[in-house]
């Protein structure tokens, strides 16, 4: 696929700015791709063609969970792709309607199981907006720190599994996988020192955090970051300098910026397509207004660009953590009343939406107050998962690629099924 260097043509109906391109796209961003028709009636396709139907998933090692894509193949080329979700639908939203605000945090941990900290923060941001709880400055710093550490861990896991998807091209694939998990364990050790858990932390609460920074944690963080940073060039060597990797990813699975926005795709995938938007910089929450966030963008919008953006985001997160770790202000970590009884938070009604930049994009929570037990539960809770929107790009992008490319695209999209299905 050819990459155009021209900025996309300006739409006449658009109001703001007399700039060269739209304000949300960086110059040189990839031109709009030719979208496949996701609603193509397969009967209308060439009747002479010998079509084959291939079910990829729901149990397939490279679908990153229980995701199923039904592929209609003409030879080895995909004609139509129909994704199916819902194999991990656990009814989290229904469950949350029965639980008190204070009980929900450990439930949503399991949604995006690659970055549980982000789920907790997203849901508590919405609850704080609904209940009007203030978060003290120390807790906001602590949240920023763990969010960035979690971003490093999440991207490392993605890098490892993506290398597995690419398979034999990268020394059996498991070289990068083993490297990445070695570094991810360092991040998990930090979280274990902070909260006592490797995986599902339950450390955030309405109005602050539960676990204060233990003594000596800052130096542990610095040590771990030094190790990870020293090994980042290795990944660049193993992945981006590898000619086979470049051949399998460059120009594969291009998603342009306009399609990203229309589909609601945010995060590294949109930034790889030249969408210069990051909630950490543009709509700051936590302590991001006190630290500089350099948004990492690429213009090509293909699988290689997504890899580059994610690898660079790791080093950017390392920089943010380093900038914050020494300046954590003193003070309480929970400004709100600490949890004494389960039913202590109460809301009469109202609606709130709060979002943050998870490693996959905008993770938001829409919460409507005034549920059962005199308003101690939400009446309705809706999580806006970034992965669902990212996975929705597949029917537009997959047709025209071969099956082996489909695996690469699926990996680079990084859908977490716990989050898509909830």
């Amino acid at each position, binding site marked *: 696929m050819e990459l155009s260097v021209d900025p996309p043509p300006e739409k006449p*109906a*658009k*109001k*703001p700015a007399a700039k060269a391109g739209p*304000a*949300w796209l960086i110059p040189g961003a990839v031109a709009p791709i030719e979208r496949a028709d*996701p*609603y193509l009636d397969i009967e209308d396709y060439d009747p002479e063609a010998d079509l084959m139907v291939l079910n990829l998933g729901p149990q397939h090692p490279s679908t990153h969970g229980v995701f199923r894509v039904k592929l209609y193949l003409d030879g080895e080329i995909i004609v139509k792709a129909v994704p199916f*979700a*819902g194999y991990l*639908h656990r*009814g989290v*939203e*229904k*469950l949350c309607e*029965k639980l008190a605000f204070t009980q929900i945090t450990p439930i949503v941990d399991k949604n995006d199981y690659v970055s549980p900290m982000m789920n907790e923060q997203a849901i508590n*941001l*919405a609850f704080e*907006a*609904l209940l*009007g709880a203030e978060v003290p400055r120390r807790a906001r710093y602590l949240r920023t720190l763990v969010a960035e550490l979690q971003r490093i861990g999440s991207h490392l896991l993605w890098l490892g599994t993506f290398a597995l998807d690419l398979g034999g091209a990268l020394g059996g694939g498991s070289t990068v996988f083993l490297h990445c998990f070695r570094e991810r364990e360092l991040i998990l050790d930090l979280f274990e020192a902070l909260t006592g858990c490797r995986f599902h932390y339950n450390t955030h609460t309405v109005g602050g955090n539960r676990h204060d920074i233990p003594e000596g944690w800052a130096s542990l963080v610095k040590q771990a970051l030094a190790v990870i940073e020293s090994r980042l060039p290795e990944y660049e060597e193993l992945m981006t300098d590898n000619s086979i990797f470049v051949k399998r990813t460059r120009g594969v699975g291009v998603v342009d910026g*306009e*399609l990203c*926005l*229309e*589909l*609601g*795709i*945010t995060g590294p995938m949109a930034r790889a397509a030249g*969408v210069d*938007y990051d*909630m950490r910089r*543009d*709509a700051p929450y936590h302590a991001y207004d006190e630290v500089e966030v350099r948004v990492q963008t690429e213009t090509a919008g293909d699988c290689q660009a997504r890899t580059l953006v994610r690898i660079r985001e790791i080093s950017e997160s390392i920089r943010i953590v380093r900038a914050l770790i020494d300046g954590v202000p003193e003070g309480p970590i929970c400004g709100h009343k600490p949890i004494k009884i389960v039913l202590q938070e109460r809301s009469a*009604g*109202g*609606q*709130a*939406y*709060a*979002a943050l930049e998870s490693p996959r994009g*905008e993770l*938001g929570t*829409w919460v*409507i107050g005034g549920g059962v037990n005199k308003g101690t539960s939400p*009446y*309705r809770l*809706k999580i*806006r998962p970034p992965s*669902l*929107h990212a*996975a*929705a790009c597949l029917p*537009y992008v997959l047709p025209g690629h071969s099956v082996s490319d489909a695996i690469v695209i699926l990996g680079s999209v990084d859908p977490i099924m716990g989050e898509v*299905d909830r």
Partner: protein
Amino acid sequence: MKGAPKNEELEQLLAAEFGVTEFPSDAPPLVDRARHLELAARLKALGYRLYVTVVATHYLPQAASKAGPEQPEHFEVATALRKPTQGGTLAAWRCKLAVGEGIPSLVGLFAGADWQEREQFDLVGVRFDDHPDLRRLMMPDDWEGHPLRKDYAIDTACTPWR
């Protein structure tokens, strides 16, 4: 609407062209469902190009009380769009639907509405008119009922698996 700063642009637009007079501080403004699609198109032209979410909520019939007047069974569908630029301004509005009424689908404007609307159709049972592919997303195709309705028991059995 809590959690997002007040959106003056949206309120002016709604007051001037859509005849909305009430702007509650703790909830998005109510818009006539017939003008749902028109509003989304206007906002998209204004730069709200990022599709955020759609939330359908089921309300059981309520007798008149201190909290408010009598309410029949109804649905509310809230939609949110965002400007992907500095500030990330959020535009959100609600539409009220009686039982059996549908709401225009936004798939023609925002491709991302496809799965979100399918999910809400599946779980809450709100019909999105002119949706090109309105199937269940989460539950199996032959599932009975809509789980997120308030009168749906959370532990509904489903032989032979639970």
